[in-house]
């Protein structure tokens, strides 16, 4: 069953260029069907999961590829499978303007399976395996347009990701050697008997592995690939570079921190201090860069950088509450950011405009898109009543609760970042809706909202932003249960 849900997207992806589709709509139906079917299977699996581990293959020695559904996997797999059908729907419409559609959908759909593999991995090795595969599968998506810019971006993406994985790999080795097992067990698997006096080395390795996985999560100074990767088609930027790929990085860090090294080992050490400082810096850095950036997608990408570090900030507080906060933001940010990216994509698709200063007055021509963009901006800022407020609240609450003065400073970073978020997001909104007195709307006379395939996902995400904002208690409770190991 578990292997099934990883394989279905892979197969579906491979079949896209192979099968002879007579009409484009047939292909769409096939893909959407496969993706939805898979998502249903995922949800079924998550809701009826058993504790048992599914062993796929022995790798070498006692290392094996195996899968298991636990709380964390439920969160991530649930998130991914929830977003993918919508993103695919959106991609159909968006890709009408791009070339090499088949290649695109091939890799796009395969990525789904790989991401689920990361989510469902039962041990560090399996996760690492899928983590590397994810890099490889997504590279063709980044270089999809095959322009010089895209090539450079994908190159950088590869260097960064593979390089990061190399350091994460060292962490993997440490866990293999000093742990009792590589399986994910909440609280960590390190064996104090084996560690002996090597505490500091292990901590150093943890920091290295953190930075290694952090490459995907765009931790400063390893973030510059993300804005560049924005040359990819928007469905990719939105789903992969705001959710699947980057969240895999965050997910991996959470796994590493909570399930492999264990918070008990790390809490209060210099390693924790280091990573908190790095994360705090990234939060502020990402926002400031977003402020300076005038390309819409790159601006959002920088925003993602900052927001990813919110997640990591929660994670490195290293308390159950911190993890709860991190998970909350993991899920909520996914919805908010994918929504804003899709808006940006819709704008590009409808108007071919990609710089902030070109957006003047579009708000009245594309009210739905910009309305939704406004909602997601407000949510990202953390306006109460929308999803972003709740996740920030949980993060800050965890920071306050941790009684760690560095975490207090982290709260300040969060708020500073919120302010900057407001500036860079709302300046877009203001431009769109308040173009100024002498604005001439002649050139954009024919611009209008996109069709339902683009709007439906947007509306659904918006509804979720609001629902999460107003009634988050059940899901936050669930996250807390995950964080405390109930699931």
């Amino acid at each position, binding site marked *: 069953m578990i292997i099934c849900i990883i394989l279905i997207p892979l197969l579906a992806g491979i079949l896209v260029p192979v099968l002879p589709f007579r009409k484009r709509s047939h292909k769409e139906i096939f893909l959407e069907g496969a993706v939805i079917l898979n998502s249903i299977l995922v949800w079924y699996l998550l809701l009826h999961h058993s504790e048992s581990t599914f062993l796929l293959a022995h790798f070498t*020695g006692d290392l094996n590829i195996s899968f298991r559904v636990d709380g964390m996997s439920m969160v991530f797999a649930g998130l991914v499978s929830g977003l993918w059908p919508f993103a695919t729907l959106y991609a159909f419409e968006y890709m009408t303007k791009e070339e090499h559609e088949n290649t695109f959908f091939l890799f796009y759909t395969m990525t789904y399976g790989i991401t689920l593999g990361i989510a469902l991995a039962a041990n560090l090795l399996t996760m690492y395996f899928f983590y590397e595969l994810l890099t490889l599968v997504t590279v063709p998506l980044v*270089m999809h347009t095959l322009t010089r810019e895209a090539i450079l971006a994908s190159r950088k993406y590869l260097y960064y990701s*593979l390089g990061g994985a190399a350091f994460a790999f060292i962490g993997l080795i440490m866990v293999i050697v000093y742990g009792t097992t590589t399986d994910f067990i909440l609280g960590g698997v390190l064996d104090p008997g084996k560690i002996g006096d090597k505490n500091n080395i292990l901590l150093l390795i943890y920091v290295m592995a953190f930075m290694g996985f952090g490459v995907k999560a765009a931790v400063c100074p390893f973030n510059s690939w993300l804005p560049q990767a924005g040359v990819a088609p928007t469905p990719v930027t939105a789903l992969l570079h705001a959710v699947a790929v980057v969240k895999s990085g965050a997910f991996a860090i959470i796994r590493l921190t909570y399930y492999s090294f264990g918070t008990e080992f790390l809490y209060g050490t210099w390693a924790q201090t280091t990573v908190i400082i790095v994360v705090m810096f990234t939060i502020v850095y990402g926002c400031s860069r977003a402020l300076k950036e005038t390309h819409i997608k790159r601006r959002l990408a920088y925003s993602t950088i900052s927001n990813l570090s919110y997640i990591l900030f929660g994670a490195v507080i290293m308390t159950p509450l911190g993890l709860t906060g991190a998970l909350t933001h993991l899920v909520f940010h996914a919805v908010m950011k994918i929504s804003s990216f899709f808006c940006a994509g819709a704008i590009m698709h409808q108007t071919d405009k990609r710089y902030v200063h070109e957006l003047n007055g579009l708000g009245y021509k594309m009210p739905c898109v910009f309305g939704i963009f406004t909602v997601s901006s407000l949510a990202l800022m953390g306006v109460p009543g929308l999803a972003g407020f709740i996740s920030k609240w949980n993060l800050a609450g965890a920071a306050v609760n941790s009684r760690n003065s560095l975490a207090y400073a982290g709260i300040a970073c969060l708020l500073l970042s919120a302010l900057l978020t407001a500036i860079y997001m709302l300046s877009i909104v203001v431009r769109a809706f308040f173009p100024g007195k002498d604005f001439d709307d002649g050139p954009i006379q024919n611009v209008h909202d996109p069709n339902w395939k683009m709007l439906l996902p947007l509306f659904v995400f918006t509804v979720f932003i609001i629902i999460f904002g107003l009634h988050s208690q059940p899901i936050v409770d669930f996250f807390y249960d995950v964080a405390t190991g109930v699931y």
Partner: protein
Amino acid sequence: MDFVCNFPFFSILLSLFSGTICSILPGRAAKVVNRIVIAAVGVMSGILLVYLLGTGESFVYWMGHFPAPWGNEIRAGVLEAGMALFFCIIMYLSMAGGAHKLFDEVEESKHNLYYILINLLLSSLLALVYTNDMFTAYVFVEINTISACGLIMIRQVGRTIEAAVRYMIMSLLGSGLLLFGLCIMYDLTGHLLMSNIKESVSVLIQTGEYQIPLIVSVALMCVGLCIKSALFPFHAWLPDAYGYSTVSSAAILSSLVSKGYIFLLIKIIYRVIGFDIFNNTRIIDVLFVFGLMGMIFGSLSAIKENDIRRMIAFSSVAQIGYIYMGFGMGTQAGMVASIFHILSHAATKSLLFIAAIGLTEVSGGSRKFIDLTGAGYRNKWAGVAFTAGSLSMVGVPLFSGFISKLLFAQAAVQVEGKMLAALIVLGISTVLNAIYFMKTVIRIYAVTGDTSYPCITFKDMKVHAVVLVLFVIVNILLGVSSQPVVNMIEQGLAMFA
């Protein structure tokens, strides 16, 4: 003694004689003979391996039935047989994959000469693998050098001759040192057979006599073999030699010849000096440091390189650095990792060379990156194979490179003091590998406006494509089911002692 025990001797002789026979055959026939010989040796090694795995212990074969310490001996264990089998597979694939290129690059009349050299090379490799006698080893090292030199210069252009000269000079320096070290060892122990030397050495160590000459001798042998296997900083000859010779030669040279020397070094470490004694010298630290430096600087040079073949050649420098780093750790695990990496690197590097030739073919024969743009689309098989090889080099799971990285890292963790350096350099080196290999992969999948070069389909290059696929399969086999191989290596090392 079972009949199977004759196989090592048979295979050495077979290849040696077939070399001689090739000299009077026309090119095409020589090719057939060569293939048959390689295949036959491969089969024999395979049978031997199975036999040895069955009996579980190594055997010694007296040449001409003269007993030790007078006679010349051949010794075969799991590791030797496995290595021989593997060498045959790689050599066969490399030959098959590069055959079509041979006709373009080598004069028609010299084809049979080429096969002579290959056969001689095979025999010398087999001898290096099997021999139990130090001086025999030296002689075959020289034969190996000569035939390798011939392989480099068989393509008669200025570069290759110059490369051959440089290669010769470095090799001769290396073998001179090896010979000198060997003589000192003989002086100290009075023996030439490895097992006998080892006994004497352990006696010497216990009595504490002749410590310095012993170390000098070991150091000389090590340095000699390091030079020959192009450990950083003795790698200056390598890029030209690998970069400009015909593709089969390059593949064989990089994946087998240097590995033969390394294997000899392993034998010396285990069978001549003794693993523990060797580890107590400072030599391993030196090897470790140079290994690490090789990993970094080899990759750095590769990054700067603008020629795909030379880039792959520089990458070999880095990979050899890995192997020596494994030696330098001075643990059984490190040694296992190194030996696995010998296999993994041999499989990958020859794949890369063969795939690279497929790519350059569709780019007007140019090896510059700028011309290779989009080559992956023009020759799909080579493109995919090159990508697979690159991923293996970078250490992506599923491929053999990952396993060797895993083994190295696991070995490193167990070594106090060297752990951090090894791990960090491993990480950095992976990053660097990623940079130059991925740069190339992306380059071959980028699109140029200029599509004047022809596309190649499967029909045009069946053999080439099949070889590439086989290489990839070997690679993935090593990557996925590495445990039997690792077990075998461990078993073989146990037989060494």
